[in-house]
């Protein structure tokens, strides 16, 4: 069975990546999360191109999208995803430090599914991520194209091997089952 990625996190700030992954691990809601650093890498992931050419096929259950990134920013990525017949049903949540009205408006105009502002207050931001992850991982219906994973033992993989710790491959991180 090909297993889909739960969350594709498109974020270029290492600190924000670390916080998001810590929350996801603590909640045990994301068996697998892939992090990319800009819109071009995210499109490569969706299209199974470049370094993602050998990844298992399947669409992510959720895309968390920073808006201000180098190369291809979040708005450009959002526009392309929502115009693509294959990808337009994937929920995309903007996860951004911008609370400017024009950015909120533009994101909704491009059919973003939700818009979450990164709080400057750490506990508030963590709580916000928790609310986000619980809702989109546990409550929202999985989109077409997502392949459900078999339940896994918390400490063993399907083949009975210990799960490796989180790997860092350049800027690509995999979050193994918690």
């Amino acid at each position, binding site marked *: 069975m090909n297993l889909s990625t739960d969350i594709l996190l498109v974020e270029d700030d290492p600190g924000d990546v670390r916080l998001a992954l810590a929350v996801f691990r603590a909640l045990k809601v994301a068996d697998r999360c892939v992090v990319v650093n800009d819109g071009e890498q995210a499109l490569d992931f969706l299209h199974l191109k470049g370094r993602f050419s050998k990844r298992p096929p399947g669409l992510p259950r959720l895309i968390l999208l920073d808006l201000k990134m180098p190369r291809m920013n979040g708005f450009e990525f959002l526009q392309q995803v929502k115009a693509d017949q294959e990808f*337009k*049903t994937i*929920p995309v949540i903007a996860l951004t430090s911008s*609370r400017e*009205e024009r950015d*909120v*408006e533009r994101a*909704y*105009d491009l*059919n973003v*599914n*939700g*818009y*979450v*502002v990164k*709080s*400057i*207050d750490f*506990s*508030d931001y*963590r*709580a*916000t991520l*928790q*609310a*986000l992850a*619980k*809702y*989109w991982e*546990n*409550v*929202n*219906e999985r*989109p*077409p194209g997502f392949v459900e994973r078999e339940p896994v033992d918390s400490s063993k993989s399907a083949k009975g091997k210990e799960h490796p710790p989180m790997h860092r491959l350049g800027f690509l991180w995999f979050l193994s089952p918690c």
Partner: protein
Amino acid sequence: MSAALVATAMSALARILFVDDTPAEWQLALASLADGALMEQTTVVKDKDEALDFLHERGSFRRRVSGLPAVVVLGPNVRRPTAMSLLKDIRSDATLRRVPVVMIATAPDEETVRSAYEQGVNSLIRTHDDVQIRAERYAALALFWGWANEPPPESVGQPKSQRLGQ
């Protein structure tokens, strides 16, 4: 999330419009948060016509506080064609098109999910026979859409950041 932070979040909920004609369902939705904040912030209407009256501030809602809700929730007892029709009306109306819409569906198949997303629903939830699970889903829905999510600027009330005094 700590209990104190949950309480803060609940007291800062933005407005929710819940569309469903079955009292038991919306009473469950309203009761899913113990402190009653959801009840204070939620308007329940029974059908598409009432929902559009509310959104356009007309009919029995012509004197309501102006502004759009942070989210419109189409309950599980709204017939699917009616839900899709209301969704289409919202997305094709220049004044309403950005309002987040969540659809709650009974046993949606893949085509229903695909169609709902293609028509512009923000989120789709599968209802559940177990009342406790349904209540938990309503609570999670209210927390994300009523608190964590930044609604479009035309929504009633202040953005989350300002509601929390940041």
